[in-house]
């Protein structure tokens, strides 16, 4: 549901088949859209979306565990492993990197974490249904659901799947086969009307609803509150996944909120459009989730963040349906009610339909990269790019540790290529005098019409040169974006060998970027040391988004926990300290991951007591029974 990371990688790395868009297919699609539109008319009856679990249309089926891992990230057929020769590879065929060997990863992994491929910490092989607590079902509610012909289940696998997001502690527990409080029932509404019915029934029977989109939350937002004694129903929106109409005159699309990112882009692409919203999690995260967490996309410099993309939102609350009366591009009619919804994290209702801006699919795209002698100079360059407002679709700056990490993921290459690489390395380190232990890399992605892109590229490289930056080629740029994209798979690999890690992010004014990065990284290292972590942790950051007045900074933190008695507790303490350090250094509570339950304790100091009171009063007005009882945020 929540966007993990600002954005992911290249489209070519995406897990989908995008070849051959025939006319025929486009026509069929249009028909489908129209029929979808018609389906909406007969709202009280059966929803079209509910009837067929159309595997061709959806990357994620109703029974998620058939395609996705139950205790890790992503698709079941794709995972990292070290083969018998100790070479790393990504299994399956979905990704650009799938099947390629990465000879550098083992040494980097063992060297960075003091890990050893002999020391394994495997997960339990399968979910044992007997450890799942029996469902606490509300018989009358279930009966009423069946009457309304809305599909639901209390199968243990489905319930467990809907009980978590992708926080480290959640995945760690699953790998150990530990199951806590899970939803008692999972329900799949097929359309807006289904949601209206579900919410009505929930109010009538006083049960607890937890909206579930893509399940990619990293804020403990999907965790069932332990104190909740009512029947908990996970409302899985994945079957609400149609594009209901496309308005080519105004360049908007009206879409059901359960659609996941890759499906949305694929379907729009068939019409020659895109939204351009690409969070790292876009393979799995949903439109409704983006709205509910104020998500951010990698290419926000061209397309904007979710709040800039949304034109209209429809949300079902216990008080009824909340929406606006028109689609004016900007309205001065009191505080924007959309902003009560954006970031409400499922505490107020279910987002069912959203009208989004769309753009013609860009004609030209180009990657790029720049090497800087130091992180300080890299940040100065990004700051200047922001000042001149010439940012490409994406510009990111990795610190030295991430540069080395990226290097470790290079595929096996021919003699000639490694010779070339050697030459480049020689040029940069010896001829240009860059210190390999200090240099860092910025990756760039340009998008738009060709002339514009080429001009912009020139401008960015000129600025980079002022700060000692050297152009380092398109390949490096592209690989940089791959790193973000497969990082969650790599975490699963680490967990096989006693290495646990997590990412977290913040936003911070420009003048504090360097101080914040240094302080937080150092805090992590010292906290680990003080708490008895033997091998120094990986504590690294990158600047992933730039704004006029500041930047978004993303941290990775990972360590080897072999020999530690309670690694999760230790991990949580360190993460807590790191967040304290972020806040003390002038950073925000979150740039795009949201608050959930993980960062709730800092809400009051973040938005003031008065601000919190305002939000509370909205919650009390909309949901006095606390039907949407996930207890996020407030």
């Amino acid at each position, binding site marked *: 549901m929540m966007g993990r990371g600002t954005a992911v990688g290249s489209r070519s790395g995406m897990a989908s088949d995008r070849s051959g868009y025939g006319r025929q297919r486009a026509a069929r699609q249009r028909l489908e859209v129209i029929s979808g539109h018609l389906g909406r008319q007969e709202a009280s009856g059966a929803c079209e979306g509910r009837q067929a679990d159309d595997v061709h249309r959806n990357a994620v089926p109703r029974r998620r565990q058939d395609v996705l891992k139950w205790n890790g990230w992503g698709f079941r057929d794709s995972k990292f492993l070290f083969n018998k020769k100790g070479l790393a590879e990504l299994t399956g065929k979905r990704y650009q990197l799938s099947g390629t060997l990465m000879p550098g990863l083992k040494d980097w992994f063992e060297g960075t974490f003091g890990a050893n491929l002999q020391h394994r910490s495997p997960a339990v092989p399968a979910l044992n249904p007997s450890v799942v607590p029996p469902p606490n079902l509300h018989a009358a509610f279930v009966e009423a659901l069946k009457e309304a012909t809305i599909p639901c289940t209390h199968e243990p696998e489905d319930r467990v799947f809907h009980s978590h997001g992708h926080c480290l502690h959640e995945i760690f527990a699953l790998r150990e086969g530990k199951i806590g409080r899970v939803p008692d029932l999972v329900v799949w509404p097929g359309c807006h009307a289904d949601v209206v019915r579900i919410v009505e029934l929930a109010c009538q029977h006083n049960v607890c609803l937890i909206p579930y989109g893509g399940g990619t939350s990293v804020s403990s937002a999907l965790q069932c509150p332990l104190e909740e004694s009512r029947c908990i129903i996970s409302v899985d929106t994945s079957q609400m996944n149609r594009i209901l109409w496309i308005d080519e005159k105004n360049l908007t699309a009206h879409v059901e909120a359960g659609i996941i990112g890759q499906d949305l882009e694929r379907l729009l692409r068939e019409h020659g459009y895109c939204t351009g919203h690409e969070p790292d999690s876009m393979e799995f995260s949903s439109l409704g989730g983006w709205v509910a967490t104020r998500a951010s996309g990698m290419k926000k410099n061209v397309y904007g963040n979710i709040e800039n993309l949304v034109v209209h939102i429809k949300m079902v609350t216990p008080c009824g349906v909340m929406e606006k009366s028109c689609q004016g591009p900007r309205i001065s009619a009191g505080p924007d009610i959309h902003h009560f919804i954006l970031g409400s994290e499922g505490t107020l209702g279910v987002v069912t339909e959203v009208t989004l801006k769309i753009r013609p699919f860009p004609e030209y795209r180009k990657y790029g990269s720049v090497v800087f002698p*130091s992180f300080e100079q890299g940040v100065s360059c990004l700051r200047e790019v922001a000042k001149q407002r010439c940012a490409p679709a994406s510009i990111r700056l990795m610190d030295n540790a991430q540069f080395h990490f990226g290097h470790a993921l290079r595929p096996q290459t021919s003699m000639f290529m490694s010779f070339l690489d050697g030459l480049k390395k020689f040029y940069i380190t010896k001829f240009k005098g860059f210190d390999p*232990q*200090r240099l860092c890399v910025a990756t760039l992605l340009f998008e738009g019409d060709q002339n514009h892109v080429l001009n912009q590229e020139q401008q960015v490289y000129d600025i980079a040169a002022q700060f000692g930056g050297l152009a380092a080629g398109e390949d490096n740029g592209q690989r940089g974006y791959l790193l973000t994209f497969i990082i969650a798979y790599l975490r699963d690999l680490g967990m096989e060998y006693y290495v646990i890690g997590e990412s977290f992010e913040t936003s911070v004014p420009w*003048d*504090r970027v360097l*101080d*914040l990065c*240094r*302080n937080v990284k*150092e*805090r992590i290292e010292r906290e680990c040391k003080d708490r008895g972590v033997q091998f120094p942790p990986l504590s690294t950051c990158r600047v992933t988004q730039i704004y006029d007045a500041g930047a978004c900074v993303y941290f990775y933190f990972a360590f080897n926990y072999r020999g530690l008695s309670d690694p999760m507790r230790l991990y949580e303490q360190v993460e807590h300290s790191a967040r304290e350090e972020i*806040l*003390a*250094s*002038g950073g925000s509570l979150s740039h795009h991951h949201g608050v959930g339950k993980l960062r709730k304790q800092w809400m009051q*100091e973040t938005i003031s007591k008065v601000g919190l009171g305002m939000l509370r009063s909205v919650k009390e007005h909309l949901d006095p029974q606390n039907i949407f009882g996930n207890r996020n945020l407030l």
Partner: protein
Amino acid sequence: MLSRREDFRDILEERRTSSDLSHALKSFTRVSSRASPPCSVSTLNKTVLESQHLHYIMQEVSKDTGEPLEAIREEAAGILEEMSQNLQLGYIRFLGFILSKVFKRLFRKINVNEEGLQRLQQAMQESPVVLMPNHRSYVDFLVLSYLLFTYDLSIPVIAAGIPLMGMQLIGEILRRSGAFFIRRSIGTDKLYWAVLSEYVKTILRKDFAPVEFYVEGLRSRTLKSLPPKLGMMHMVLEPFFKGEVYDISLVPISISYDRVVEESLLAYEILGVPKPKETTMGLLKARKVMDEDYGNMHVCFGHPLSVRDLAKGKVNRKQYNLIPRDLPMKPSESIHAFANTTAHLVLRLQQDNMVLSPWSLMATILMQNLGGINLKLLTKQTVWLKWLVLDFGALVDWPVQVADSEVMSSGLSLHHSVVRCEGDQVLLAEQKPQRGAAPEEAVFRRAVAVLMCASYRNQALHVLASPAMLSVALSLAAASSRADIYNLYAFLREMFYNEFIFIPDRTGQDFEEACSLLQKCGTVQIINQNIMVTDKGLSVTSFLTAAVEPFIDAYQVIFRYICSRSVQEFTEKQFISGIRTFTLNLILTGEVKSYDVLSSETQKNALASLVRLNALTKKKREEQTYFSPNKAAIGRTADILAGKIAPQARTYSRL
């Protein structure tokens, strides 16, 4: 305090056996917390001048004065040029060579705790370091740089008073050895403050070098800790509060002398005879001081204090989140309180690691026997005092395997300028007044001798201060109840806050500690919330009371003076000359025995205490500060101090 007795090593021993030249030319590599290479002096200065903070201030000053910004910028550049150090390893080597020669001549030993240096090295690798030595002698000034050079540690930049710069040649040598110069009375000169603070902060942010400064602000003429000055303290803490560095280490350093090189000047200075101006000629004339023996010097590097750890839970760094960090702003109350407490803590830690010489113990006994004392008795009492201060946790440089009588005679001969022996009697060495001189002249000469001896007593006073306050409280209290005694203790602590340096907001804790010290050595018994002096403890409490009596007497005289009819509103200058005449008369009539009241330091401390207690009000008028007394309040204070009435009850925090 050091967790256990650490070994000291005499660094002069090696200098006496191997070449000073090869020591000066040895290879030297710098340790630093930064991975990046250190910047040059000119880059450092450029960064300061181009800083946003200075820019804001220059704009403000330009607006206030109506002068063009360019002129202000030039003024700032001028200030920086006057101020900035120009640290060069070559000069350190040169100075190292000279100092080897000088130190060997002046001192028998320079003892250093090497473990402290190891800790310092560790700290230097982790974060920017601030070296905070006490200041008792000009010798302090370069001894740390010399030691750090010897031990291959980063050479510090040192905050120095501008008079030092005025010395021809020497000023330049000091500058190139890392000294930077600060004007004495900066007052409200905004631009100067801004340049200085930006300079200090930039050095720390860039970890250019360790910063060394004296938190006492000046050389202590009384050899007692001075109340801290907070200006520099704020400057070195701020980069941490604002998140510009991860942490800062404060290293308290205690430098103790058996005999202070400028001892003969001290008494004159505190009696109000101005000290000679620092000139190069003056230094050359002072060559005869080189022929004297100054015994041992101890340099003890304390445990580095992490500002981050100290500030935990006390300072909310988020207070800077909503304002540009470069914007000039007054420190908040919590920041101010933290800086104040931290400065006091550093002073306390300096005191804890001071090494007491047998002589300062002798001086403490002598001060209670100004009429002279039999050598055997002096020896007996000094040895007794040695055990007492050891019980109180002090470090004493009492040679082992040497007879006590020898220790005594060595101490007495080293300090022939202060004491002399006449047969079995030990007396103060007092210059006889010229025949026909006024009686005031005789008092003055006597005062010089007494205050010189008092200075050496003062070296040991910090060990006795808190238990002495408790002893006085015990003697003043009408009953033995813990609460009454605590009240009196707290009152005395407030009263002598600047005299003996107590850490703010630690009254309860200090009281407990004093109680347990006296309980441990069998002086008091604590039964059912009653504190009673034991029979054999009486000697200890009366000794401790007598040790601080001169101060109590001095304060009483000062109170009496202020309460006298003729005194209304006064400036500090008027007060000091008034109290001097007043006291001289009392001493001449034999009514007052304390010479400490003649010390300008004591006089100023008493004023500061009265201001703290709201018995004096400070007013600023036409660039002058005036004090107006609340005579009733001062009278009450005097009565409490005399045991006539009890102080107002206060909350008993730690019980």
